[in-house]
């Protein structure tokens, strides 16, 4: 069999930090980047005698995430303890939800191919602290340090069914998930900052088989790119094994970013038994139907809804709508422009072209748009009114971003108004004709295309301020007379 005769089954487990101000079971701040061990208290340090108390806001956000992912919210769920030893786990157990999770049975729709990826469950848990090793890892380090600022930060874990069939589908699922959670204002969902973490379960089987293959779990995936690469690597590896008549072993493999391979961690746990049991410190999590309804009714507009609004109500191409919904800030920016009177497609062109181009070049993230919608809309008005040319507008946009000035001020200060008065333009045109006798001859001999060269010369002499349409008319007029 060749590799084309195998298919992958990919399931993803995604951990996402919730956007609460305080931790899951205490009132310490969740702020990222503070000095180590400053946002801590007896509860999140697991000091003897301390007890957890659930954060209502975290439950709200988790329910919102569940609804945004089309899950069934269970009105009664339970907190369990997952027991294991690790230095950054201060209680020796993590409070999680095991056999009675907050939500079950949702899905996400991806585009290429258009299909539904089912979500098995979504549950709440607390994050652990962060270890830093003076060495490669905890066994090789001469010492390790632990920062408990992250300990107790609320997480949701979203577990998909093994419905993805290619690394590309996995990437789409993750991007979509990221966008939905961003638009639902549930999480920052940043893989770089660790507010989104992805583990993959991947197996291969001959196409058409209905028996699942032996899955491996992939960890240490720090970007979508890493997910795609690791999955592709794993596909080749597992197919390779099967082709050689060997068996795939169920194991946890780490993605090695520098070598671009997956590898088994040195034989650590014999078998992981987390000894889950109901946390006796926490009563069941009981939600009222009214609470869930309230969360549903206050749900922010989600990307799919926005895309269809852009396509159906504003007549934007689907491509544009997808780009504009790549971050909530971008969609908000676009909506504001339209609200201020911009023609949607024109605004979209400028945003997708020059604005995002500038941001990309400068490495500015999509959620930090360095421009006021009003400025862009004013600039579009100036173009429409013929005050500035589209070419000049490109420079003005950059100046607006870099100086924070509004477009009228920039135009005035730098004298960038388009030159449309015919007398001034005629004078320049005459000069250009005088300077380029040979070109004029060519045109008179019928090579009309050369007019563009003369227009260009006029633009050059006016530093781009000439109204090109008028220049064209005047030129034709002078050359034929």
């Amino acid at each position: 069999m060749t590799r084309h005769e195998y298919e992958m089954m990919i399931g993803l487990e995604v951990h996402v930090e919730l956007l609460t101000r305080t931790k899951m079971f205490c009132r310490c701040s969740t702020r990222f980047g503070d000095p180590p061990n400053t946002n801590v208290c007896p509860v999140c340090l697991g000091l003897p005698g301390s007890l957890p108390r659930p954060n209502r806001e975290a439950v709200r956000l988790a329910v919102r995430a569940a609804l945004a992912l089309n899950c069934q919210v269970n009105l009664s769920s339970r907190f369990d303890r997952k027991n294991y030893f690790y230095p950054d786990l201060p209680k020796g157990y993590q409070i999680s939800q095991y056999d009675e999770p907050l939500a079950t049975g949702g899905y996400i729709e991806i585009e290429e191919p258009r299909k539904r990826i089912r979500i098995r469950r979504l549950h709440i848990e607390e994050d652990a602290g962060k270890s830093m090793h003076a060495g490669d890892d905890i066994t090789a380090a001469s010492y390790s340090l632990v920062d408990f600022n992250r300990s107790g930060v609320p997480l949701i874990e979203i577990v998909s069914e093994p419905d993805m069939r290619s690394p590309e589908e996995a990437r789409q699922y993750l991007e979509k998930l990221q966008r939905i959670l961003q638009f639902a204002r549930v999480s920052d969902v940043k893989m770089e900052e660790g507010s989104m973490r992805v583990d993959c379960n991947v197996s291969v089987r001959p196409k058409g088989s209905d028996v699942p293959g032996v899955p491996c779990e992939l960890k240490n995936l720090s970007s979508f790119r890493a997910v795609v690469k690791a999955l592709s690597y794993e596909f080749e590896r597992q197919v390779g094994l099967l082709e050689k008549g060997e068996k795939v072993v169920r194991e946890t493999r780490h993605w090695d970013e520098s070598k671009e391979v997956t590898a088994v961690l040195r034989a650590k746990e014999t078998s992981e038994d987390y000894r889950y049991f109901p946390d006796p410190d926490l009563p069941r999590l009981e939600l009222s139907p009214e609470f869930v309804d309230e969360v549903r009714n206050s749900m922010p507009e989600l990307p799919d809804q926005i895309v269809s609004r852009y396509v159906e109500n504003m007549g934007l191409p689907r491509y544009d709508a997808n780009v504009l919904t790549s971050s909530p800030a971008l969609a908000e920016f676009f909506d504001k422009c339209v609200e201020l009177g911009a023609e949607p497609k024109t605004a979209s062109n400028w945003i997708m072209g020059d604005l995002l181009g500038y941001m990309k070049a400068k490495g500015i993230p999509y959620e930090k748009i360095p421009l006021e919608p009003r400025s862009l809309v004013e600039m579009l008005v100036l173009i429409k009114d013929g005050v500035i040319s589209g070419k000049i507008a490109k420079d003005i946009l950059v100046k607006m971003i870099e100086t924070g000035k509004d477009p009228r001020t920039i135009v005035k200060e730098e004298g960038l108004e388009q030159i449309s008065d015919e007398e001034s333009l005629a004078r320049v045109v005459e000069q250009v004709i005088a300077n380029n006798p040979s070109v004029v001859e060519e045109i008179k001999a019928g090579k009309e295309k050369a007019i563009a060269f003369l227009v260009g010369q006029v633009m050059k002499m006016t530093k781009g301020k000439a109204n090109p349409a008028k220049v064209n008319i005047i030129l034709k007029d002078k050359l034929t007379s």
Partner: protein
Amino acid sequence: MEIWEMSTKEILSLLKSREITAQEVLDSYLCRITEVEPLVRAYLEVLEPEARAEAAKVDAMLIRGEDPGILSGLPCALKDNLALKGARCTCASKILENWVAPYDATCVARLKKQGAVFLGKTNMDEFAMGSSTENSAFGPTKNPWDLERVPGGSSGGSAAAVAAGMAPLALGSDTGGSIRQPASFTGTYGLKPTYGLVSRYGLVAFASSLDQIGPFGQSVWDCALLLEAIAGYDPLDSTSSRKEPFPYTKHLESSLRGLRAGVPGEFLGFGIDPDVREGFEKILEILSDMGVIVEETSLPTLPYALDTYYVIAPSEASSNLARFDGVRYGFRASAPNLESMYQKTRGEGFGREVRRRIMLGTFALSAGYYDAYYLRAARIRTLIRRDFENAFEKFDVLLSPTTPTAAFKLGEKIEDPISMYLADVLTVPVNLAGLPALSMPAGFVITGEKGKELPWGLQIIGKPFAETTVLQVGNALEQEIGKEINDKIRDMRRDLTRTRECEPVD
């Protein structure tokens, strides 16, 4: 009469009328501690400087005419599994030998607010696991009635301190009888409140679904007073009840006429000492004479309670004690790598009984055994709770001896865990059902060789949150039989002082 010999009620009224000062009260107890603590060893640490500062503060308030709270300078001892900010909290374990609590338990904060003066931290079985206080890493506490016997456990230090006159009041914790059983062994009053009435925040957890903090005192009134100070909803404990706390001391007087008391036959089937049984029958007669309708009843699932408890409690403990790993605080054994650091720290830091229970619990929660052990135990627990509910449809209280026997000898059961566990056979079911229960001294049995008299306790079990009823029954009975008991306590305390006089200081 020395201040420490007075009843708590008397001391409090003298304090309130400013005939004595909190500092004088404290001095009297510190003096008593110097006198008999070397014999009894109830304390792990006496917090003399801190206590003096607190007493001075209360006196200053009293002088200014301010209200220092309902305890108004009364000294109180704390079991060493309760967090008192700035004081060591060892749980009588080597693993926490030098751990200083950086915060106050809720009950401690509440006692501070009511003007309590903390005498010190009392000895206990390590992490509250035991029934004799012999499992303390720092040596056993002796029973003031007979220094060759155990004071019970796990709150043996608190019980012995109150019994010996080294504290008028003390707090303990009760997971399977750890307040009531030592109260019974030492002739003191001890109350285990309804699960959820007193916040567990700051109590180092043994078995979270069973643990409750409760008072020790020299009378029912003492228990009511201390309970009043610590009871009530606490947002820091998600299992704490939102029921309004109650002024228990103001509702102690009540006629028992017409009250229905049940005596579960199963409770009398656990190898009860014939003398205890005889004393118990006598108490039932006294109660009948007082107008109580006493009837025998049945709780069919009771014989399974001890087994159930010894699955649930160790399971929870195995997880609760996982945090003692040598990483952040407490004892850490030196070792070449992480894995062996864990093993050596926990192997050397925990005592034998604690290790035994961690292993039991770890086993019961393991994949493949969970259903057969933990889950089944949780189901039986529900049945036991239902049994109690049924009984309480007919009765206002249930009665039994607190323990099958009076205090046993030091070393007598330490090598035989099962017989040690049986000491809690009558108290454990109450924790499984989360009910309130009082143990009060109800009589004496004479022990063999020296003819010494040892107290035994009566257990009064109530409906959930019916502490008032339990205390009322106890109070009425105390008024009937308390005088004789108090006389014997006075004699015991004098004997203790004399013993001290003839023994060399160690």
